[in-house]
């Protein structure tokens, strides 16, 4: 055999595999495949240093013992065993790597191994039936030097590819996060504004109509409050899926904020009645979809929604105008409660502006001391005055006394309610101080004030009350606070802790409007409350209304079982009083006894 030519042939065949593919594994696999052909190897393997991510590397970590790991073999197995799992082979390779020789021939068992170093970071292992001719062994190092250089280049290439891919993934993620809602995976508010801007352009250039539908889930807050945010989140995810399935390619669904979703319908026809018909169909589908109960392990939850919408077919309204209008429409629908969906009209803006003006007036009223406290006395069955409930009245200089049913809900939408609550507490304390200086009958126990949900939710609620009592130097027993059942749906533990603190201080607590909320009887027992105020709706015509009679009877029994007293609100007739006496309710409040009185009128009640 012409050995010189054979050597040249082998070198050139092997070198052909080098640099053929930038993918390291493919290149080295091809190299080993050619080893089988040109070196007549039975099996061949490459072991390399690997980093912590199991990626090949050529950089030595001088702080740790270097351990080569299997990278690729041709063929993959020997007698059915994967070479990557051949621990004996791995041990032989690492032993060779550590002995600082460039090449070595070794018999182990029935196998003949030839080991060759690849740079200072790898080993090529050739298994053969017979020993390689020394001339051929000596001809391989130049090939392996080239292989080492190409391996380094491929590793660098691989690192670069990984870096680029990682960067791409990060950029894609950032881009996704910038345009999508993290919880539902829907587009977010920013992105829908872009789509809306584009839809407005389309309307101008392609004579189309678009529509924005803003969907507000009602009843959602209760789920969050009662069941926790994790359940609320699941509801939002399911609602998102329902909307996406429903809308399909008709439009774009996005999460606007909180429990509000937004749908952009684009490419609608110009004809108004056709557009209205399409929008109506979509609205009907959305309402149906949202009213299907949401089912979880934690329970089954029913929701409904209100929808406000605005259509557009020209550039007269910008993105923000359209969104604002839809928002006004949904607010109006919510406020009216009758229609589930309302289109925006300009009257709504006017009403909203009125609302804003009204809010401003409340602020001014606070500043100008236009609020007053009136007191409705409370009596026992022997007609002794046992206390009074402080009721807020706004003496508007233009409109006279305003109904609290109008301004309290508006005040509750903002922090104005806190300012009002603060006024009520302070004024009640001042009035109590004055009453303490009067010869009050022994039956008169205290003045009660209503507490708002926002007040109760404050961490310093109890301290605020205690401070007011101390500052005004009144007896804590003379102040009673009234809370409603629904207020207990927030952070119940915090509420109980606050009420407990007040109870220890001497301030009693009453549960107002009892029977209309959804309070858990378990919590009722834990509340340090001493009085249940039966809601006026159950008292009305109690003498004739059997169901009211039954409810009140049940409440009285319930109160007894938790060792609480009861007082009936809204007692207006003699017959109602008689029924209540018959049921065992001995405390009353209502027009039959007295209307709310100004403080001065109340004081007159105690004058001899």
């Amino acid at each position, binding site marked *: 055999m*012409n050995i010189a030519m054979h050597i040249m042939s082998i070198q050139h065949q092997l070198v052909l595999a080098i640099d053929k593919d930038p993918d390291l594994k493919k290149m080295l696999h091809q190299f080993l495949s050619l080893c089988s052909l040109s070196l007549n190897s039975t099996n061949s393997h490459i072991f390399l240093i690997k980093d912590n991510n199991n990626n090949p590397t050529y950089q030595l970590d001088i702080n740790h013992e270097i351990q080569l790991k299997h990278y690729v073999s041709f063929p993959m197995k020997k007698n059915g065993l994967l070479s990557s799992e051949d621990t004996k082979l791995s041990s032989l390779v690492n032993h060779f790597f550590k002995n600082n020789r460039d090449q070595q021939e070794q018999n182990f068992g029935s196998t003949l191994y030839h080991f060759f170093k690849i740079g200072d970071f790898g080993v090529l292992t050739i298994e053969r039936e017979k020993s*390689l001719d020394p001339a051929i062994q000596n001809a391989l190092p130049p090939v392996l030097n080239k292989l080492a250089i190409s391996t380094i280049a491929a590793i660098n290439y691989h690192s670069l590819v990984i870096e680029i891919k990682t960067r791409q993934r990060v950029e894609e993620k950032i881009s996704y996060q910038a345009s999508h809602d993290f919880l539902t995976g829907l587009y977010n508010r920013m992105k829908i504004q872009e789509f809306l801007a584009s839809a407005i352009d389309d309307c101008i250039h392609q004579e189309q109509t678009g529509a924005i539908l803003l969907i507000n889930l009602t009843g959602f807050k209760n789920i969050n409050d009662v069941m926790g945010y994790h359940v609320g989140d699941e509801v939002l995810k399911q609602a998102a899926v329902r909307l996406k399935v429903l809308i399909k390619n008709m439009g774009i669904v996005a999460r606007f904020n909180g429990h509000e979703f937004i749908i952009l319908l684009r490419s609608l026809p110009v004809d108004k009645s056709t557009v209205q018909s399409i929008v109506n169909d979509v609205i009907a589908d959305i309402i149906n979809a949202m009213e299907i109960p949401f089912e979880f392990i934690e329970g089954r939850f029913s929701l409904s929604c209100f929808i406000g919408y605005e259509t557009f077919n020209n550039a007269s309204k910008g993105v923000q105008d359209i969104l604002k209008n839809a928002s006004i429409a949904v607010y109006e629908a919510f406020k009216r409660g009758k229609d589930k969906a309302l289109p925006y009209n300009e009257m709504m803006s006017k009403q909203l502006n009125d609302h804003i003006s009204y809010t401003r007036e409340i602020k001014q009223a606070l500043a100008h001391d236009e609020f007053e406290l009136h007191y409705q006395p409370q009596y026992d069955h022997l007609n002794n005055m046992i206390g009074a409930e402080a009721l807020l009245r706004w003496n508007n200089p233009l409109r006279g006394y305003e109904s609290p049913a109008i301004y309290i809900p508006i005040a509750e939408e903002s922090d104005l309610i806190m300012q009002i609550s603060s006024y009520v507490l302070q004024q009640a304390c001042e009035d109590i101080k004055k009453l303490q200086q009067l010869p009050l009958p022994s039956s008169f126990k205290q003045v009660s004030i209503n507490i708002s949900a926002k007040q109760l939710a404050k961490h310093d609620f109890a301290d605020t009350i205690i401070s007011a009592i101390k500052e005004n130097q009144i007896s804590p027993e003379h102040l009673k606070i009234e809370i409603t059942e629904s207020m207990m749906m927030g952070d119940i533990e915090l509420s109980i802790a606050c009420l407990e603190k007040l109870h220890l201080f001497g301030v009693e607590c009453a549960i107002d409007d009892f029977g209309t909320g959804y309070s858990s009887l378990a919590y009722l027992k834990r509340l340090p409350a001493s009085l249940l105020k039966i809601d006026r709706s159950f008292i009305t015509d109690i003498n004739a209304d059997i169901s009211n009679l039954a409810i009140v009877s049940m409440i009285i029994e319930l109160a007894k079982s938790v060792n609480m007293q009861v007082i009936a609100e809204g007692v207006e007739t003699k017959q109602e009083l008689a029924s209540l006496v018959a049921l065992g309710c001995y405390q009353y409040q209502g027009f039959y006894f007295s209307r709310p009185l100004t403080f001065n009128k109340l004081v007159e009640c105690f004058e001899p």
Partner: protein
Amino acid sequence: MTMASIIKFTESPFVSELSKAINSVIEEGAKTVLLLTCIDNNYELDETEQILKMCTLPLCGGAFPKIVHKNKSYSQGAIVLGLTVSSKVVNYSMHADSDAHLKNYIQTESKQIEHYQNFIIISDAFCNQCENFTDHFYDYMGSGISAIGGGAGSMDLLSHPVIFTNQGLVSNVTQVVALPCSISNSIGHGWEILEGPYLVTSSEGHYVHSLNYRPTFELYKEIIQNNINSPLEDDFFNQYAKCFPLGIMSLDGDILVRDSLQTNGAYLECVGNVPVNSMIYLLHSDLHKMTLASEKAAQEVARKGVSNTVLLFDCVTRDLLFGEHIGDELEVIQRPFPNTPLIGVMALGEIANTANGSIRLLNKSTVLGSF
């Protein structure tokens, strides 16, 4: 010893006889049916398809230019081999659009037979990925396996449906029959170096463009001219190519024969890949040397152990070279197995694992296996 197979032979070119033979091996307890038939049989396609599809056992095999039974070759007829061992048949469809896809496909399909070590491989000789298949299959299954096989098809060099499956006769398929028993195999060819070595300075798959930087055909003609006393005629290639194949010599001295199939006056197209930068030789032989090589291969198989099935994949070009003397070669192959009838085919390319264990596509060779 358990019989590995039940053998039925018929000289009939009709499918009815094939059907009878299939039913017969099934009745005798076969678990898999291997068909070796002649491409020139008068098998009506629809009827054949019906028989194949109705077969209740796994079915495999191919149609070859000729079949071999005992010491004779036949241009018509069939051998039905009822394998009594639980074998597994995998049909690999050779439609991958890239080598990477082919590799993935082979690895995925081969998982079901990855615990087997012995294989019969029957390939449609005209699917152009046959050699890539053997490379990837070997890469996945690993060294230590044993394989015999060959290419099915017609001498007209046109593609026909030649692989038998339970779904009918198909083309462009490579079929692997995984056996749970060991196959002893051996390769013989009898070809020796006439001239060389030459460095393959340009090649692409089957096409050898240049040797020692000269057009292959030009050099090839020159070498033959130097070895022939009379001047070469224009169609010398068709006359001499079958007598002067090329050979790739391994580092350990084994010769892998590469038959030269055709030329365009510049390149030579071989049956099988010729890698660039490999060293090749011009080979020659004679009937005596070829017979001796086949005899040696048979003796080697016999020495490894007595089995009840001796399966031959002999190159169809050897049949052409032997002509009416083919019986002499078959006789020496049969001789070491006096109690076992030799069965086999004249194939278009043979498949076996070579000295280093790798499965290779061979030319002008005798592949013998017993199990």
